[in-house]
């Protein structure tokens, strides 16, 4: 594991991270003390670090601070490390305790709602699809569409029997005991996995960082493995104005190339008129355990995002991330859809 005290000690106090942090922008420094305070300054006072508990869970882990830091310091990771250090089961935030309870009961980070599986490929194909909790249980259309799209392009798919939550939400709330337990359970079920595809940037990054696997997000799989030439879209007369949100974990932890794939695909879909909103990479508030821990902050960020999309006249906002769709979907000021679900609708 990285040594976070030393890794972040190169801070020169330029303040770039503070200027860019979306939570500071909406909540102010009196409420959220920010990336430098939580990831760089506080960890130096080892015995006092527990005092960060009153605001460290407000970070959405949008990774923006690391992106702009001239010293390239791993600030979000350091924040997650502090969360791990100060984790104490009795002091969990209410919403975080619910996550832990769901894990214990259902092995999902959310309560399962999608009881009747309409699509359930049970083959032992070449490609393993990892559904993820939100896509499977909260917004089942994501799960169904992903399986649908992969089927339409001729992928031989299988889903590991008895898969459990990947553990990404537990990393965000600092609960490493449960995280390790889930990893072990999943690893036995991933036996004979072949290539891995997921719908969720959170799952993808987590499987890379904590399972040492090389999964692909569905967008990467479609663009790199299937190829644009095999995607055939339905003709469409009516034009629709579409804006694309750049999910934090997709563009900053998996990589900026993935969003380019999304644009390439959108450009091929008849009837889509792309409109570019201001700062499409601004955080929607959906990550970092903030939706569960501080729903008001998540909502403030989502409101900002929706405002920017409406400002450029978008009729539909697309996000290639179940968490973003879940959080943005709490507002009904604009139609919001997961990217692959939209692709599934338009694919021949």
């Amino acid at each position, binding site marked *: 594991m990285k040594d976070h005290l030393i890794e972040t000690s*190169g801070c*020169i*106090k330029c303040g770039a991270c503070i200027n860019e942090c979306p939570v500071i922008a909406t909540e102010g420094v*009196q409420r959220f003390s920010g990336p430098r305070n939580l990831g760089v300054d506080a960890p*130096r*006072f*080892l015995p006092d670090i527990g*005092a960060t508990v*009153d605001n460290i869970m407000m970070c959405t882990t949008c990774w923006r601070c690391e992106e702009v830091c001239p010293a390239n310091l791993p600030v979000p990771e350091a924040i997650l490390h502090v969360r791990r250090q100060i984790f104490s089961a009795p002091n969990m935030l209410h919403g975080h305790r619910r996550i832990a309870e769901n894990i214990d009961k259902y092995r999902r980070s959310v309560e399962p709602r999608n009881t009747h599986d309409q699509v359930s490929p049970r083959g032992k194909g070449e490609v393993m699809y990892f559904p993820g909790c939100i896509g499977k249980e909260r917004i089942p259309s994501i799960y169904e569409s992903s399986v649908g799209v992969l089927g339409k392009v001729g992928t031989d798919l299988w889903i590991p029997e008895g898969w459990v939550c990947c553990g990404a939400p537990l990393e965000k709330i600092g609960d490493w005991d449960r995280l390790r337990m889930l990893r072990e359970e999943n690893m036995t079920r991933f036996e004979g996995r072949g290539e891995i595809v997921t719908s969720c940037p959170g799952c993808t990054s987590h499987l890379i960082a904590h399972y040492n696997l090389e999964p692909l997000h569905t967008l990467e799989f479609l663009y790199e493995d299937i190829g644009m030439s095999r995607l055939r879209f339905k003709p469409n007369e009516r034009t629709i104005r579409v804006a694309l949100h750049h999910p934090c974990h997709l563009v900053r932890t998996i990589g900026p190339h993935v969003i380019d794939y999304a644009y390439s695909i959108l450009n091929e879909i008849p009837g889509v008129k792309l409109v570019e909103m201001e700062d499409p990479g601004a955080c929607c508030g959906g990550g970092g355990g903030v939706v569960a821990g501080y729903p008001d902050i998540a909502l403030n960020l989502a409101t900002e995002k929706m405002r920017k999309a409406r400002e450029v006249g978008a009729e539909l906002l697309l996000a290639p991330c179940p968490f973003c769709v879940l959080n943005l979907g709490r507002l009904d000021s604009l139609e919001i859809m997961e990217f692959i679900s939209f692709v599934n609708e338009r694919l021949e």
Partner: protein
Amino acid sequence: MPKTEVLIVGGGVTGAGIARDLALRGTSVMLLEKEDFSTGATGRSHGMLHSGGRYAVKDPESAMDCAREGVILKRIASYCIEDTGGLFIGIEDDDPTYVDRFLRGCAETGVQAKEITTKEALSLEPRLSSRVSSSVEVLDASIDPFALTLGNVEDARDCGAEILNYRVVQRFLVQEGRIQEVIFENLRNGSRESVRPEVVVNASGAWVDNVASLAGLRIPMSIDKGTLVVFNGRLVNRLINRLRMPSDGDIIVPSHSASIVGTTSDRVDSVEDFVVDRSDVDLLISEGQSMVPDLRHARAIRAYAGVRPLLGGRKEGRDISRTYRVIDHEEEGIDNLVSIVGGKLTTYRLMAEKTSDLIMCKLGSAGHCITASEPISNPMAAKTVRDLLAFPLIRMNRKYGDEQTDIIAGCTSSLRGKEILCTCEEVLRGEAEYFCSREDVMRLSDVMRRTRIGMGYCQAGLCIFDMASVMMEHSNQEPLDLIGHYLRERWKGVEPVLFGSQLRQEVFKRYLYDGVYHLESLLGGEAR
């Protein structure tokens, strides 16, 4: 002309301790310090509350004093002590027979020590070298010398003592074998003032000889310089000592947000020789690394040096005992002058007690010492103050003891009070405002010693302008003078560690100061 029963020269921890001791006994006291409190050896020390282990083999008398005083100070000054505990560790190439001598010495001097396995030591302190071959647990602790001295000052004031800084004692008027009058300069306005004391205490540390010479006396001193390097972050959580005959770079002290590695020992001629040699820095880093290898990657923030006031003699540096001596100059023909020489920060209370006993004798007064049982201030647990985040509150609790109630009130009474001025050390504007409005505070470094503002890794890179603006609300000094003076002081500590992150930091500051604020030209090229 004002009178006082006792006039103390020197506002380091010893002088402040004597002032408190005497004031608690009901004596009228005046203390004069030529700069700010703790600017001498006190503020330049390592901040180690010795368990006595370091002296157990070579200097049993000091070891015994430290062992006893350590327990007392943890009781009476808990607000400024982090009771971390300490470890003595031997490294593979160190003399393997030393550990037995060490344990025997500890047993004979009453220093609590318990040998533990290397595995236990590594689980207590994961950053220790894997080459550790022997480990002993002791009761060392980390103590904040600034807060300790100020606690004594404030307590003495509460008992009626007059404690003044920026007053240089310049002349003693001696008649009939007594100091009749003490003449001093007030640096705030350049005026010359005097006072009639019954007894004078020379607690001027390394300057004792200079002060004694004002009465025509000599006190042979050995001036020994020690250098230390401050690293960012708490790399260890206990004090780490090298288990060998005391030598250079033996000790790492965790202090607030930093780890301090020290010290060296060199005989010097001048008591004002605070220059840090780059070679000493290199030596400390390499010795420190043999105990905690991560120091190689850690960020050196600054280096500083202090001079130890050691009792003279033919011995060199580390061979001179760390005990103290109370000198009654009556035999040399000055009836009412007492000097206190040598000692340690750890034993300051005992030194103050013995000195005060003699003074009470001279005054012919009764009144016995109560400092061994009377707490310096009653720190309260950080209260939940809804308006403030927990972090600055905990920090205030660790810095201010009794005074924190007023300071917290100042921070929460306005929106501006809550603003963080120094982010490295989590210092709020209200803290700076509280001290800037006090009589004692004249320079920016005075605010720093009281709040830790500017002590962090950027070395006041950002907070200096805020600090100056708060100061300007209470002072009519020229802001550029304040800033220039402070930056020159900081630069002395940073220059010896200009590599790695600290070099990058200084380049950024240079860009900010010159490129954005044009400070260099405003200060006439002095800002560095």
